């Protein structure tokens, strides 16, 4: 219990100082660019494939349900809302946690084991500002960007199946997509990836920096950060949805 409390305390401190690290010198801009490059372009291909396939699969499910009911005109709307509000933020958060989050944990755990974190501190350099802040802001910038691109890719995947396989009118599909681009959907699409990106980066950094013991420590840090990130993302997804519905019924 005491261990859990200390771990939570350390996590909150990491979040606080990690965010505050963006204020005041030195600013590690080149480190931020490296992290953004790893998190963004490095994940783009996986994100494109995943969301395109998810969009296609979703459209098959929806079309099969709607076809007999004569609701083909609503297919685009349902796909659009599902993709923007729920499927893309969650899918890409899971991809991000697996590819970027686990990598952050393993990298930082390796640095702990090789005494590189102690070296930072011994040289009067704050490891939170140097290592955690660029990773948090890298995730805060790149996960929403990936989600934005992923939304379009999934919708295009849906259009691909809807128009080519089921021969539904593409005009109808795109006009129903346009009709759902309102404030509420935009809020869902923007808020979730920001929160997920922050959670994944901070949890991964926290787990990595507190890891212990050899190659098993690296393995356990990567696994633990992925499991914790995904569970936290799922729970926060529910909470964000609930809160947004309260404010925008």
């Amino acid at each position, binding site marked *: 219990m005491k261990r859990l409390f200390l771990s939570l305390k350390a996590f909150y401190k990491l979040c606080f100082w990690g965010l505050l690290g963006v204020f005041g010198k*030195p600013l590690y801009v080149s480190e931020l660019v490296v992290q953004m490059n790893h998190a963004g372009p490095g994940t783009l291909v996986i994100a494109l494939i995943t969301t395109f396939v998810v969009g296609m699969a979703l459209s098959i499910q929806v079309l099969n349900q709607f076809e007999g009911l004569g609701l083909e005109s609503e297919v685009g709307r349902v796909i659009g809302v599902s993709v923007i509000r729920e499927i893309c933020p969650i899918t890409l958060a899971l991809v991000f946690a697996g590819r970027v989050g686990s990598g952050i944990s393993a990298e930082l755990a*390796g*640095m702990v084991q*090789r*005494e*590189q974190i*102690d*070296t930072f*501190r*011994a*040289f*009067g*350099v*704050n490891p939170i500002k140097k290592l955690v802040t660029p990773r948090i802001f890298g995730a805060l910038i790149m996960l929403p960007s990936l989600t934005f691109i992923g939304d379009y890719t999934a919708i295009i995947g849906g259009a691909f199946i809807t128009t080519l396989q089921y021969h539904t009118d593409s005009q109808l599909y795109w006009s129903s997509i346009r009709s759902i681009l309102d404030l509420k959907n935009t809020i869902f699409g923007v808020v979730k990836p920001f929160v997920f990106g922050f959670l994944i980066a901070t949890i991964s950094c926290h787990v990595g920096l507190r890891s212990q013991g050899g190659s098993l420590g690296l393995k356990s840090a990567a696994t633990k950060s992925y499991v914790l990130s995904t569970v936290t993302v799922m729970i926060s997804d529910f909470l964000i949805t609930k809160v947004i519905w309260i404010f925008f019924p």
Partner: protein
Amino acid sequence: MITFKDVWLWQEMRPVIKGVSLNINLSEKVAILGPSGSGKTTILKLILGLLVPDSGQVLFDNIDLAALKEDKLDKIRLQFSIVFQEGALFDSLTVRENVAFYFREHTSFDFGQINEQVDLLLRTVDLQSAAELMPEKLSGGMKRRVAIARSLAVSGAQMFLYDEPTSGLDPVNADIIRGLICDAATNGKGFIIVTHEIFDALSMASRFMFLKDGQILFDGVKDTFLNSQVPQLMEFLHPYKYILDKL
């Protein structure tokens, strides 16, 4: 002056430092000897404030390190310069970038000035040709030399701390490292070397401490160290007895 006052530290539910008290002047040349797992590296980390004692105090010029905020602590840390075991070089940086680390973080030198300083330091450790290599391409001895070059960059350091600087090195490389350590300790700068290599300690230090199971069992000069009647120390020195008698 570094002072330990009845310092206790627990890790993983067991005490790793047990009631250690000591005073070390920054100009002293100290060797802390002891078997593996006796708490030698932990002493270095306590000196730098990287670890906080569970009880007792670690003082630097009568300032309790545990009471300081991280930014104040950083200023004290820069009075020291440490070389960790295996060098602890940053994997993602080249040798040049590793050595330039202090200059980039703590000086306003421009790119040219930093390169000039780094070249000078790399010449000191005879590694100019390795400047653009990544740490993974270096041998164990080269890594330690780069780490020493990086530590020499800390201009305000009054004392150097070395964690097992020669362990696992061949005799030639170990001799080079010993030379660099002695050369660095000039102008009143001292060092603390943590090692289990008895001959390293004897060739470089003037004060000897023996640590076992987190306790300092001996603290004194060379003659008293070699003739100590402390049973654990006698046991530690026993394998070297024949050569030491010849010396």
